[in-house]
């Protein structure tokens, strides 16, 4: 917030009122455009929280879950709503009910990179649909890679199981 205000003050001081107003108006138009998306994203998050069977998902990503465990964990990361306050405790709970560490790594990576909440509410309005589509395509395989790398690190003894 401090950064935003000082940037605004700097632009005002450097370029004067007309330029300042032009930027303000174009940003305000962007804001109006994004509001329905933010509302939609928040509603999706709220309903997914209420309807999702978390315990069932936890059982699907156990130690012997293999590739399908990683895929399920990735999909769960995409649909899980909310910020770090929701996601990290869910990941911790997964470990407690016996989820595989690779699946938990895939889940967190997926949630942070291609999770719908961050993408719809934050990234889309700021970055625009073209950029977001491009980035999502590039990020899609990463949660699986992270899960496989984590499993490999555990298997070869480079890291110890949590």
């Amino acid at each position, binding site marked *: *917030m401090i950064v935003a205000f000082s*940037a605004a003050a700097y*632009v005002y001081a450097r370029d004067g009122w007309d330029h300042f107003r032009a930027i303000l108006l174009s940003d305000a138009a962007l804001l109006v455009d994004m509001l329905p998306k*933010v509302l939609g994203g928040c*509603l999706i998050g*709220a309903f997914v929280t209420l309807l999702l069977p978390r315990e069932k998902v936890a059982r699907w990503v156990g130690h012997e879950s293999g590739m399908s465990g990683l895929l399920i964990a990735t999909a769960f990361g995409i649909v899980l709503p909310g910020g*770090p306050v929701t996601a990290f405790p869910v990941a911790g709970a997964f470990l407690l009910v016996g989820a595989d560490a690779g699946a938990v790594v895939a889940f967190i*990576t997926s949630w942070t990179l291609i999770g719908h909440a961050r993408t719809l509410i934050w990234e889309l309005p700021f970055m625009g649909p073209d*950029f977001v589509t491009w980035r999502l395509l590039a990020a899609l395989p990463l949660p699986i890679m992270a899960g496989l790398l984590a499993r490999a690190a555990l298997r070869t003894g480079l890291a110890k199981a949590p």
Partner: protein
Amino acid sequence: MSLAISLLLWIVVGILMVIAGMRSRGVLTEGLRHGGGEVLRLLPRICVGVVGSGFIAEAMPKALIVPWIGPQSGLTGVLVSIVAGALTPGGPVVGFAIAAAALKSGGGAPQVIAYSTAWALYAIHRLVLWEVPMMPARLVWLRASVSIPLPFIAAGLAMALGKP
């Protein structure tokens, strides 16, 4: 495109509301209340973030952006972006405002993708402030270390895909 996404989004909302309504009336109203409350809570931050990002873009030294992380900056630009991403503090407002500003001021898209991927995966302040207190530390460091190559891969894939 923007309209199509809004439409798709609201179709999903509609489907979820129908499913919730079929469970019970209570689930439907609770979902609406939670979702609405979340919007009101986020709104001030989004306003400052969106309006601020325009000014941050204007204030950013364009003369530095293009040579450092412009489309011609290649692997060095990707590396610079990743280090910047890991060091960026704050929530989504700050990260995306900076990324949007860099893109507007002439940063290359693969470089900006590397920045936001690194920031999402291992922004140092988030590891320490959020993740370590809520999860076994060993898992956090395992996750962070296997994530180190991912922003490079994302940037590489983005370059390979070309502009959509």
